[in-house]
Structures are given as C-alpha cells and as structure tokens.
C-alpha cells in the first residue's frame, strides 16, 4: 500500500503552505482541516500539480448543539483519498466556488447549497438541482432539525 502513502505524502506537501491540521481517519485517507477562505487555494495547489481529480463534495451537519456545519471536499488519485474539511457556521455559511477550476463542480455545489444552505460565491448557477420548483425557500432538508416526513414542507 505504500504507493497510496507516497501519493498522500506528495499531496500533503503540496498543501503545506495552507498549514491545515492533518488527521488520518483511516488508512488510504488523509483529512486536512482548512479554513473557509483557503478552499480555492488548496484546490488550485492540488490540481495545478496534477494530483487526482475532484470526486465529490459532502455536507455534514453536526447538529444544533455544536452549531457546526462541515463541508468535505474529496479529491482522489487512484486509491488515495484526500479530503479538505471546512467547518462553517450552521446558518449563512459562505464558500468560494470551485467552478473556476473545475466547471463540473457546479453540480456538487448546487446540491450542497440546496440541501444545507451553504452559499457558494461565484458559482455560475445557483438554482435548484434536486428539489422541486415549489419547495419553500430557506428550508434545507438535510439539516438535522428539518422534518423527515413529507407532510410539513
């Protein structure tokens, strides 16, 4: 498995200037926790050096108690998975859009913005991707407190 480790090492070297805090949730993966402003910079560092491709953006709601909404941007190169973790406030989170670097990211970003309420500044299209047209504004289904059943919304 050392090929994966070397790949992850090179990725961490590229991201050194951001000096994000590095954790290893499981083998073959590294997480780098960076603050919101550095996302675009981190993505550019990775992509300019040709390290892998953006595979998904995950939204993670830690609940009202912690008041934290985490956005995970996953990059993959072969078996190695590098995730940029960004912690945002639950309401009105703001992130720079990756569409400048990777136009295909707009699909992932629209999903996160309509499900979690994170606004991606500079995204070419901020309209809904999955939710129906008549879905009420401001209701973000994947947040913990919004109801599961279809009745209310």
């Amino acid at each position: 498995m050392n090929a994966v480790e070397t790949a992850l090492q090179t990725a961490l070297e590229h991201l050194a200037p951001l000096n994000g805090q590095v954790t290893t949730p499981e083998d073959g993966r590294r997480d780098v926790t960076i603050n919101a402003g550095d996302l675009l910079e981190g993505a550019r560092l990775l992509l300019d050096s040709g390290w892998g491709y953006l595979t998904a953006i995950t939204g993670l709601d830690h609940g009202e108690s912690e008041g934290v909404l985490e956005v995970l941007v996953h990059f993959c190169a072969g078996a190695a998975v590098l995730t940029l973790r960004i912690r945002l406030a639950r309401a009105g989170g703001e992130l720079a859009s990756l569409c400048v670097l990777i136009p295909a990211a707009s699909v992932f970003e629209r999903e996160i913005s309509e499900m979690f309420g994170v606004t991606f500044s500079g995204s070419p299209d901020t309209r809904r991707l999955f939710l129906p047209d008549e879905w009420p504004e401001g209701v973000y289904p994947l947040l913990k407190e919004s109801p599961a059943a279809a009745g209310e919304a």
Partner: protein
Amino acid sequence: MTTHPDSAATPKRFTIPIGPQHPALKEPGFFEFTVEGETVIGATLRLGYAHRGIEKAVVSRTWVQNLYLLERVCGICSHIHSLAYCLGVEKLAGVTPPPRAQAIRVLIAELERMHSHLLWLGVAAHDAGFETLFMYSWRDRETILDLFEQISGNRVNHSINTLGGVKFDLTAEQIVSVLKAVELMEERARYYLDLVRNDPMLGQRIRGIGTMSAAEAHRMGVVGPTARASGVGRDLRVEAPYAAYTAIPVVVMLETDGDLQARFIVRIREMFESCRIIRVLLDHLPEGDLQARMPRRIPEGETIARVEAPRGELFYFIKSNGADMPERIKLRTPTLCNLGSVLALCIGRQLADIPMLLIGTDPCFSCNDRAVVIHQAGNREKWTWEQFRRYGNEALR
C-alpha cells in the same frame, strides 16, 4: 415534457428539456445553456424528477433496513449500491467478510455489469431507431437475469448482499449454468462488437459524434466507460481493488478516439473482460462460510467506500455515531458526475457543437425538440431542435 418556466430573473437561458424517463439516466432532467453570441458561456443541469430524498430517509433507518433502501437507488445496478454500502459499514465495524462471500459478490457484480451494458446497448439502439438490435440485446440479457433468478430468486433488485457477507450460496449446478451463460455472452458480444464496428447505418449515427479528448476527459473528472473511451484509464477495480478484485487482476479496456462509437466498443469489450473474470473466479472459488458476525451497533467513525459501477465510480461516504442508525450517508452516482462534466465541456464550445456533444453521451437528450435561445443582447429566439441541428450542420460543413 414541460418547459422550464423562464423566469425573468435569469434571461440568459436556452433550455433543452429531456424526456421524463430513460433507464440509463438516473434522473431525468433539463439542460440549460447560456449563450453569448456563438460561444456558450454557461451550461447547467436541472434534475429532480426522480429525487426521492434518500439521504434524509437513510438517517431514520437502522443499518440493516438501509440495505433495502439503498438497493433501490437505481434498479439497474442495485447490487453495486448495496456492495458499496456493505463494504463501508464492514470497514467501520472492522469486520472482513469470508473469502467465499467476497468472491460471490464480485461474481454478481460482473454479471450485473454485463446485464447493464447489454441494457444500455439496447436502449442506445432504440434511441438510434435500430429496433432489431434493441430486441436482440435485451433477449440475450434475459440469460443473465435467469442466472440472477437462479442464484438469488429475483431478476432485478436481487439483494445478495447482507452486512458481513452474502445470503445465498453458489451450488455446483449453478456454477455450471453460469459458465454456460458466459459462453453464450462471449459469443453474442463478438457479434455485437462486429456489428457496432462495421454496420454502415449504425455507423452513420455514432461515428465521430460527441468526441472528447483525453485531456478534456481527465480535467472534467469523467468516470467509467465514458472516460475509458477517451483513453483515460480510470477503473477502480484496478486502482483501488475491493472485495475479490485484489486476487484477480482486471485488464482496463481503453479506446482512444473518444467518440460515441468508442463508448459502444468499450462497453462491449468490457463484457469480454467480465466473462474472463467470472471464469477465473469460478475456477478457484474459495470454500468457507458465507457471513461474518456483525455487531448491531456500528462503532463511531466515518469511512469512504468507492466501487466501480457499470457507469463509473460510485462514491459512498458513511458516518456513524455509534448508534444503530447511521448519522450521515452521502452517495454520489457516476451518472451525476458524467453529466456534470460533459455539460461543463460545452463551455467555450461553439453553439453548433452542442447537439453532437449531448447526443454523444447518449442519454435520451433528443427526446424533446424545443429550445429557446436567449442571446446576450437579450433578444429571445425560439428555435426548434431541427433549426438548431441544421444550424449546427451548416456551421460544421
């Protein structure tokens, strides 16, 4: 087939609504382009017709109940979804399923890849108006569905997987019937490969359409056969082998010219590869039991499971907080990834290239023929698909 309501807020819109349903496409949707003069400056996608809110429902179900829910994300590749979910949960629980279970999982995954490719071949031929190929490929696909029924009792949604292993065993005569079916599949795949390469009429419809170069494919993050048809060798069975793929080296099928015909050829050649894998698998099928014990409560933690679905890389992110229900499951299907990137490919291209590019990815884009082109200057023109195609042809000639 309704028009997307053109609200005044964003005048720059050019909507091509596609049909309500297409088996290969996970979600029917709309495609919207923003046009500046001749070059396209923006291309976006609007899904939502088949959005059921699975990621929210997953949170209110136990780990075992989620198995049945996640098998029904997509009816065509239900096994691969449950496989990705099981791999993730087993990694969280630190349980490794017995080798025989892993082998059976890979066997069913390869059978499902063949059935999905045959299905796509039929539906693509149906779109190109070639009814006979649609009937032939779906007739051959029935042999694989018979195998699924023999092994698991159900033709589609054949829930073989359970947390920690598999539910059904492979008896001796089932192995014989699988090998017989593989013979037939290889012979039929040879016939289809020859047909796709040399048929003059079909060639008219698929040669040189929607060409994507390797650099574009890599930059866009296209996955699966669409990427392999452009020479980008991205196949998770080789890069990040899971289940029994660690023991069986998979040969990645690559084509270089990246047009629609190459995508046909890649998918059919992958059927040969699947047949080879199944034979190697069945030659030395490991003995042993089928399931490993699984705790009811999955220990706290988060994991990423990535598997090679018939259409490309399927990505699962599973987070558990120690309870008997998951805290968060995020799944990103390959079609979403392919659609997003191929659309992004249209940016900067000439307006006339779009029909070729969209039809190149072969979901049923030409289902509806209405397009409203709104130029930067704000004047609105209502083009039919035919004017648009003729415009495309003149520009190309």
